[in-house]
């Protein structure tokens, strides 16, 4: 019984981590059809912001939940202005350019902070499920993921900004004709996606080693989740996270974490063969 509880908790945690990792990417991809290959580095920058500002004496919660998203959001804004905006509509070129950005950011951070692993101590202690001890921080990660997904959904569904964003997503020309200039919407959305990535990086900093190359550990999962989810940002990412997170956690439990990732990839390959447009490309098409 306790073991089942533990596994369920781990599955939930694994799903939450996937949601955190991929929501920022999903916003940018869903809105602009841009696959941001520097997404892992955006997460990494969020994590570094958290580490650096905590070391500078900032409260961990402020660093994690405010400083990280703001800093990375501003960085995303800068990136969008500097070169993404010249590449709209050229999907492969944006992938290449953001990949170049990813390498450059890794190089820059390595130059500044050195190629070492840093970390911040995870707050809270642990709690017990039956005879098993587990981390209370995981519960916090789950909560943040849930709040993030729900918040994004509420914003997209009920605010004026959300309405404009959805309209631009459906038909940019029509939105422009009605007075919502797509370039501005894209700029804001890119910054929003970056901020979400920064927040995710900050929240995951205590549970993962913070190093210049930490992004590459995350991006494979993030990409698979976003592509598997399909066009609907929140629902798609949520469903794909649930599916892939569940599969990888069960495989991890049965074998090793690495083969958990392999199982995740195989599941994604099979799903792309069956549902090339992602889950929400076929099912629940009108969701958000």
């Amino acid at each position, binding site marked *: 019984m306790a073991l089942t509880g533990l596994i369920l908790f781990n599955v939930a945690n694994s799903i939450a981590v996937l949601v955190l990792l991929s929501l920022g990417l999903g916003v940018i991809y869903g809105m602009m*059809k841009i*696959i941001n*290959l520097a997404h892992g580095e955006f997460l990494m920058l969020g994590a570094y912001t958290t580490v650096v500002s905590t070391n500078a004496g900032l409260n961990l919660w402020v660093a994690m939940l405010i400083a990280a998203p703001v800093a990375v959001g501003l960085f995303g804004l800068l990136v969008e202005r500097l*070169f993404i905006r*010249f*590449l709209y509509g050229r*999907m*492969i*070129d944006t*992938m*290449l*350019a953001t*990949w*170049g*950005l*990813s*390498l*450059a*950011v*890794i*190089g*820059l951070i*390595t*130059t500044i902070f050195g190629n070492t692993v840093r970390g911040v101590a995870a707050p809270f202690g642990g709690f017990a499920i039956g005879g098993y001890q587990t981390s209370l921080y995981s519960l916090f990660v789950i909560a943040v993921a849930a709040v993030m997904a729900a918040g994004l959904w509420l914003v997209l569904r009920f605010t004026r900004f959300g309405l404009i964003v959805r309209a631009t997503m459906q038909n940019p020309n029509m939105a422009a004709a009605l007075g919502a200039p797509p370039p501005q919407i894209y700029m804001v959305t890119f910054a929003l996606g970056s901020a979400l990535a920064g927040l995710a990086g900050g929240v995951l900093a205590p549970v993962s080693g913070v190093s210049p190359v930490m992004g*590459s*550990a995350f*991006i*494979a999962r993030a*990409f*698979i989740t976003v*592509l598997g989810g399909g066009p609907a940002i929140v629902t798609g990412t949520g469903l794909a996270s649930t599916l892939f997170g569940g599969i990888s956690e069960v495989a991890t439990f049965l074998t*090793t974490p*690495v*083969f958990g*990732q*392999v199982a995740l*990839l195989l599941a*994604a*390959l*099979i799903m*792309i*063969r069956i549902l*090339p447009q992602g889950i929400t490309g076929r099912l629940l098409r009108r969701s958000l």
Partner: protein
Amino acid sequence: MTGWASFVAMVAAGLALLFGLPMVFDLFGLLQMTVFVAMAVLALSQGFIWGYGGVMSFGQTAFFGLGGYTYAVAVLNMGDSTVPVLLSVLVPTLFAALLGYFMFYGRISDAYIGVITLTVTVILFNVVNSTAGDFYTIGNAALGGFNGMPSVPPLNVPGDPSSPLDPEQTWYAAMGALILVYVLLRMILASRFGRVVVAIRENETRAQLLGYDTRLYKLVVFAIGGGIAGLGGCLYTNWGSFISPTVFGLAASAQVLIYVLVGGLGTLLGPILGAFGIQYLISLIGTQEAVNANLVLGAILVVFVLLVPQGVVPVVRGLFRRVPNGRRGRVAEAAVVEP
């Protein structure tokens, strides 16, 4: 230049380098050129499937690394290097075919193909990285995890394990392989099959309407590219008698794209020159401390995508080939037709 003239000129230049470089360089220089050649083979595979097949593989190093590991495992078990070399081409070809089946028959878009191939590389990296320890041995070969596989036996005279190639002979083997791959690709591109492949790149729907099964053509192109990349991996492993999971790393995958993009998309010469140029640049960066290689490579990639998306070779060709009445369309057209 017409097709035949450029073909003869390229092969002649290749042969001149093959026999000329050992006279010009000392052993160290020649060794460095050998690894450049291995990278050039990898670049050719990427240049072929991307520039001609229009298949956006972001993980060509998956096949490169797979070829390298296949060679290492096989040669440690067999002793004689003849069959391992063949396996190092065959295994990545089959793997590419399998992966290609899921991707092309799923009819996913180019961007998805990029992401899937990238993901495959990342996951191979994680898997091979975790294979440290005695449990992960294949026959006599320990995979070694993140430490890689040291002291892989070198190539030997086919069928005679007791006479391994010395570094100079390895140069001949590597450069010879590069020339062979180039000739093979030129022949493929000149054939009916190659024309269909280019037609699919130009307009996939039109090719389908003309009755070609574009999925199958792309699959075959992808598999050929996988095999060539595997050969490159085999040469690379030979060069250092060593292979480690870093060959699957993201930085390595990006490098290959940079070779092709800088050299010139839609040419065969471009990727080769790109590989030599970028590798030389990396070895220069390696000799100093101030600038990080990733930073430079990333900047190069961004700059080329934004400012010179067609690459160096087509631009230079365009300069030489500008017709008197200045029809700029000729430049792009020439880049499309002639490798």
